[in-house]
């Protein structure tokens, strides 16, 4: 018999970016709110303090800020014919753990999608016709447009404290910004950060080839800043410890720096850590939820937390898992196309070129996670899909982000991986390499989906979620296109040595090397319950008082890092709850 807690107006599952946004915005309505967080509590002080945080082995390699697979993981197979095996130790993607979630350990790359990315099927149909869509690709429009979301992108960027320079201010294209971005109603909250040597070299070479370089949009403070919740940030000192770390000096945008201090001071909000939600409980008629059941780690017992509204704001994979376990929709069947949960799981298609300059000093440890200059000249809005034979695009960026030597030791191909040759190589090349990265879109396919594993269970006896995922030709072709365009640019910079790393046709998904923690889809937005798990307000079609936020909403992945769209959608959702739902709880249209 589960212990029962006092009923709340709202229960929030997972206290990362979207849970914090829901918490503070709904607390402003005077609602009584509890957030349940699977992991531990953590704050800038004392958890991220200098110098203990500057520890590559502990955080960068042993991944002590991340979700422990012993507590929660998935199984993975490349296609429906393969037996899924557990993702036993972290590699390809790194879901966060604890208060702040992945918003604590990210790099701070904050992007808005391009207008056409949210209406991609229409864009393809109108320009080339639907016959260019490959078989098996579930290409869709989002049920929201860029114009719908623009005020909420702006709101999120003000809260998160984003640095950059608007390239499209209310339709006016401005020199030095991104001419291919969606319109902005206001300039960035903070100006761009200074440009490191590698970025400057890239910028010069890109300009010479007629491209349009601009400073990356960074969730990294360039100045002192106070956000709309009164939270303060201080300017980044380029310490070079962003991704996989908490920021020790209030410079990286995170739930801790942007929201949680203000939220925790509100008397109608409380949060409980080490509280892992096991399932959402549905009412007998199955049309609403009554609350959630969670595991109280300290008490070692199950607890029922009743609530009028349930916000699912855990990591994308964990949201989908909870929804599958709770019957918040039907599992997607790729053969029949029926069911919606687990549908359109997508990822990211990345590549890059490394360049070695014997006589250049890049000081790779001087940097931050969102450092650098970018071009969008090969982005989704710029590519001729019909001519090139793929649907997608990427942004390119060059900028130092860490010089941590266990993981960041680029060496020319042919350098031995051990022995005297390796030791000589690290002495010769550390600090003399730079790179350009291509960060590309990933479409959704029938092959790539999520469901429950038939064999493996977690410590609570629940089935693990099973990921069926492999690279697909469309995205690999996009990647090869980027290689063909990037190599001439890199060569124009006259490096002593250069080498490209782009997956090619036939590449198989490998769970070992880190690729990106941009797992998307699985509870996608749609116009109706046959096509998606949630509506345009992230409200589940199954139960109108359950809202599922985050990158699980993405109908296919964009070419950018997901946080900006996640934040915009979260503010769009809480705005609808505040203005439409609270006064009259019902399915929103």
């Amino acid at each position, binding site marked *: 018999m589960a212990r029962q807690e006092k009923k709340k107006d709202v229960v929030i599952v997972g206290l990362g970016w979207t849970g914090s946004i829901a918490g503070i915005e709904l607390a402003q309505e005077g609602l009584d709110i509890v957030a349940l967080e699977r992991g531990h509590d953590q704050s800038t002080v004392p958890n991220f303090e200098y*110098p203990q945080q500057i520890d590559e082995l502990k955080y960068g*390699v042993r991944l002590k800020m991340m979700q422990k697979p012993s507590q929660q*993981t998935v199984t993975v197979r490349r296609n429906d014919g393969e037996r899924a095996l557990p993702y036993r*130790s972290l590699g390809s993607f790194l879901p966060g753990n604890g208060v702040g979630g992945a918003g604590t350990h990210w790099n701070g790359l904050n992007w808005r999608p391009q207008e056409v990315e949210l209406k991609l099927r229409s864009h393809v149909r109108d320009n080339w016709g639907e016959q260019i869509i490959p078989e098996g690709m579930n290409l869709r429009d989002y049920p929201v447009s860029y114009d719908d979301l623009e005020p909420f992108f702006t709101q999120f960027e003000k809260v998160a404290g984003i640095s950059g320079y608007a390239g499209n201010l209310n339709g006016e294209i401005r020199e030095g910004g991104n001419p291919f971005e969606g319109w902005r109603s206001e300039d960035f909250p903070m100006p761009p950060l200074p440009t*490191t040597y590698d970025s400057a070299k890239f910028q010069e070479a890109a300009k010479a080839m007629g491209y349009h370089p601009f400073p990356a949009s960074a969730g990294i403070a360039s100045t002192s800043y106070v956000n709309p919740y009164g939270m303060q940030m201080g300017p980044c*000192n380029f*310490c070079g410890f962003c991704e996989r770390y908490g920021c020790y000096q209030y410079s990286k945008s995170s739930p801790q720096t942007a929201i949680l201090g203000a939220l925790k001071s509100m008397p109608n909000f409380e949060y409980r850590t080490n509280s892992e939600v096991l399932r959402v409980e549905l009412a007998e008629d199955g049309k609403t939820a009554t609350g959630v059941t969670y595991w109280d780690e300290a008490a070692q017992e199950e607890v029922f937390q009743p609530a009028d509204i349930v916000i699912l704001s855990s990591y994308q994979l964990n949201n989908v898992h909870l929804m599958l376990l709770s019957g918040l929709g039907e599992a997607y069947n790729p053969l029949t196309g029926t069911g919606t949960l687990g549908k359109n799981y997508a990822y990211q298609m990345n590549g890059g070129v490394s360049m070695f300059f014997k006589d250049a*000093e890049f*000081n790779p440890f001087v940097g931050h996670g969102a450092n650098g200059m970018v071009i969008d000249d090969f982005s989704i809005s710029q590519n001729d899909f019909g001519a090139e034979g793929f649907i997608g695009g990427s942004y390119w960026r060059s900028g130092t982000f860490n010089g941590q030597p266990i993981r960041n030791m680029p060496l020319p191909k042919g350098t031995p991986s051990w022995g005297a040759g*390796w030791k000589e190589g690290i002495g010769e090349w550390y600090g003399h390499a730079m790179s350009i990265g291509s960060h590309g879109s990933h479409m959704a396919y029938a092959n790539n989906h999520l469901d429950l594993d038939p064999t493996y269970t977690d410590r609570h006896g629940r089935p693990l979620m099973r990921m069926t995922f492999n690279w697909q030709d469309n995205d690999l072709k996009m990647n090869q296109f980027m290689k063909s365009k990037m190599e001439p640019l890199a060569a124009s910079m006259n490096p002593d040595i250069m080498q490209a790393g782009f997956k090619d046709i036939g590449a198989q998904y490998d769970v070992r090397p880190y690729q990106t923690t941009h797992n998307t889809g699985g509870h996608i937005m749609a116009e109706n319950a046959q096509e998606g798990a949630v509506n345009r307000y992230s409200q589940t079609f199954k139960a109108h008082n359950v809202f599922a936020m985050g990158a699980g909403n993405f109908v296919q992945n964009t070419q950018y890092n997901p946080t900006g769209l996640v934040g915009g959608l979260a503010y769009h959702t809480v705005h609808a709850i505040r203005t439409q739902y609270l006064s009259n709880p019902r399915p929103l249209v």
Partner: protein
Amino acid sequence: MTDLPGYPSRRSFLKASAAGAALSGLALPASAQQQPQPVSLDEYQREYLNADEWAFIMAATARLIPSEGDGPGALEARVPVFIDRQLASDYGTADDWYMEGPHDPNAEPARGWQTPLNPAEVYRQAIPAFDAWCQETHGAAFAELSPEQQDASLTSLQNGDVALAGELREFWGLLLSNTKEGYFADPQYGGNHGMQSWVYIGFPGARAAYREWPERHNVKYPLGPVSISGERA
């Protein structure tokens, strides 16, 4: 060097370090040279490895990162101490990993860690198996071979030419990555003694404050490393 606003103690620290001065205003200043020297590797009290395993790790890491040439070797960096301590820690026992069965240790490598063994167990079982292969192939256990034979044996291991059970497939990857970790990690974990590897490549360690450096293009950062404990080199 210009001022670091708000960081007076750090600035004086940097200046002191740059000038080679022994002390600064920080709470725990101590140069690497002033640290009490740890016991020699021969006298080190092992936490996990047995005598044979220790002899193997000493010999193998000495070939993976040899002492000859510029920069420290694995032995000067005390990498064997690091590996011993890591295997005795929650890393060795894979506490954070999902280790439930069923296991398929012969699954293709791209499927990730699939052996039922944790890293400490992989070392324990793989070292005698590899030594047996060395005995059969070269006539002696690995630690007893000549450096040339040792390099040839490691090359065979790397290339998959040493027949190890599927459960032990990760051995080469573990050995090489743990060796490099011990070479480059903060000295608090027992390796990277005196931050010699950081000095060698020019990584400033835990300094982690470079406010005025982004726009100093193509200028080599001049200061040596600090460790998390405040050690300098």
